[in-house]
């Protein structure tokens, strides 16, 4: 199993911000904004797979 697959994925997340953050060497602007945007869109991926399981 790869490192990516060993992530702890809390409800609402597919790729947690803490993991994504490692891909940015430096964020010169508002990191909280980058984080929030990442998590909001990541949550759509989460909703996709769980809705597939639950609703369809």
């Amino acid at each position, binding site marked *: 199993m790869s490192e990516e697959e060993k992530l702890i*994925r809390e*409800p609402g997340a*597919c790729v947690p911000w803490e993991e994504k953050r490692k891909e940015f060497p430096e964020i010169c602007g508002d990191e909280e904004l980058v984080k929030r945007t990442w998590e909001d869109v990541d949550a759509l991926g989460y*909703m*996709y797979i*769980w809705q*597939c*399981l639950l*609703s369809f």
Partner: protein
Amino acid sequence: MPAEMERLYAERLKRYTAAMRNEKPDKIPIRPFVAEFTAVYAGLTCQEVTQDYQKAFDAARKCAADFDWDAVVGNMVYGWSGLTQAIGLKYYAVPGVDLPVDTGFQYVEPPEDQAWMQPDEYDQLIEDPTGFLFNVWLPRVSDDVSPMGEPTSMRNNLSFLKGGMAMLDYFGGFGTQAAALRDESGTVSAISGILKAPFDIIADKLRGYKGLVMDLFRQPEKVQAACEALAPHLQHVAASGADPDGNVPIGLWMHRGCSPFVSPAQFERFYWPTLKQIILGLWKDGHQVLFYAEGDWDTHLDYLAELPERSIVFHVDRGDIFEAHKKLGEKFCLSGGIPNDLLAYGTPDEVRDRCKKVIDGVAGNGGYIMDAAAIMQDDTKAESLKAMTDFTREYGVY
């Protein structure tokens, strides 16, 4: 919205929510869960309402406009095949493709040895439920999604693109539909959000019923751990879709925990603990849940009585609604209790007699919503549903 519809909507919402709080409204609310019935009533086939969700929405609105109902679901023919085909889901049998055009869509459970999750894969699910769904489950249930480590394909890529776009389109359509129901007929959208018990998810979509039953004996600790691993995710998804105004409940669709699918002891050990935990969490956050209890749940009513007052609405299918009222009526609103076979094969007088018996038996102090026992498909007769509706309107006045 026309003033008359605005007034009607407010009146119906007040009636519906009062009953769900186990209070006495002005009249008994009527909230029929009509699925393929809407197609027959609107002159459409099951194929049309399964494959063209706008037609399904139109048919639901036609019924809402023609019958004096307080609340409906925007589309109870929920499994839109445009979406399921975009994802490539294998477990649907679609009218007009796999089934006759006038047969409702079906779920197909694979043979036990081809279950979507194999018996030795519990640890993977428990360790990372979301990762398991993406990496193991989805490639198995989809004709198009490539298994991890195997070459990808255009169909693989398209399944995510089309599936995601279709899901947004469909869910967005429910918002539009709710507004149209309100504007056109003053009808309330009955539920918001979806929940299933962890045990049901394992039975329905992972191990299959037969596989899960074997697991209850061969590896019960794994089943318990899997239920515990799934619970926070299912609670999260339920809360994400809940009514932000807190008026209407989250729909909980209950399948495999009833008699005789599991014994009372199995229910107590496997089904109930994690479902109870989820309900308590949702209620703490202000979300009521509608227990759509398909089948006979009479042997489990004492467990349901453990839940906080008003935290759920309990819908009765094949159980004894009078027994449910005895055990739960002080704490929770009930709905249902009008058998579907009566609505399909009975006379209007027989339907009225049953409605009277149920109203007399359980609705005296409020806390009851009129509905059929189970989701109404293409065998429900319009004259029966009209008898149920009209009688309740005449007799169900407080």
